[in-house]
């Protein structure tokens, strides 16, 4: 449990050395706490959690980009003539919110799909190398373009695979030794 590192687990179960400052009565509590901690770490490293976090991050990025791009939005000035200033402003903000939601959904879908598929592929292969993001990108691109026909799905898969390969090459680059 808390034996010194690099040493074989030689203590009989239930008699491992306690961390300093704790008594034998706390052992039960310690085991409980350790059990919950282990579950937490397993949960944090699972594919579902990674997919959810990536989806949330994608949603946030999509909403932010949409918010920024809504400042460049132009529209017909004759569109909302009969409303006063306050109503016009509220209409415009609602439009912004709808755009943010739509764009966030799209990016969130992409992020969640890619992260989930990459995690599943990596769990299956039990290796961490460049093949995982490329394959995950291909599958994600294919899924995202599935409604446009097989050729478009294939092309979309290739494009997304190339894009994710570029990103992962950047993420895995050799950083300088002086940090």
């Amino acid at each position, binding site marked *: 449990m808390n034996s010194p590192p690099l*040493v*074989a*687990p*030689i203590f009989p179960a239930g008699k491992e050395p306690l961390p300093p400052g704790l008594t034998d009565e706390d052992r039960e509590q310690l085991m409980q706490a350790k059990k919950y901690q282990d579950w937490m770490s397993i949960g944090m*490293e699972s*594919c579902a959690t990674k997919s959810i976090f990536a989806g949330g991050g994608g949603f946030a990025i999509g909403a932010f980009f949409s918010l920024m791009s809504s400042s460049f939005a132009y529209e017909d000035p004759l569109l909302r003539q009969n409303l006063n200033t306050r109503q016009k402003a509220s209409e415009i903000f609602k439009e912004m919110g709808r755009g943010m939601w739509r764009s966030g959904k799209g990016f969130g879908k992409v992020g969640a799909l890619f992260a989930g598929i990459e*995690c599943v592929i*990596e*769990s299956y*292969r*039990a*290796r*961490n*190398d460049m093949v*995982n993001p490329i394959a995950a990108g291909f599958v994600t691109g294919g899924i995202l373009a599935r409604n446009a026909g097989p050729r478009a799905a294939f092309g979309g898969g290739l494009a997304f695979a190339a894009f994710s390969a570029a990103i992962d090459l950047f993420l*895995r680059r050799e950083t300088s030794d002086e940090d």
Partner: protein
Amino acid sequence: MSFLGRSGSSSSNGINQERVDMAIQELDMITDVFNRLVSSCHNKCVNTRYAEGDLNKGESVCIDRCVAKFFEVNKKVGEKLQNMGAAASGG
């Protein structure tokens, strides 16, 4: 009384000595298996390019499988050895 005490303590010392030896041997075996296991699974699973300190998902999965396979192999080889020994002694 001292004679009784001495004989009693010496006989109990003799049993204790055997058990101590067995315990030492078992400890040595466990430590040896542990060291081999850690060494071989580390060589097989962990990439030599250390980009970060934590284990990746792929590496953790690999280590889980490596440990399970190690024990499986141990068990199978032990069974075969036992069968060979039984055949040799029986036949």
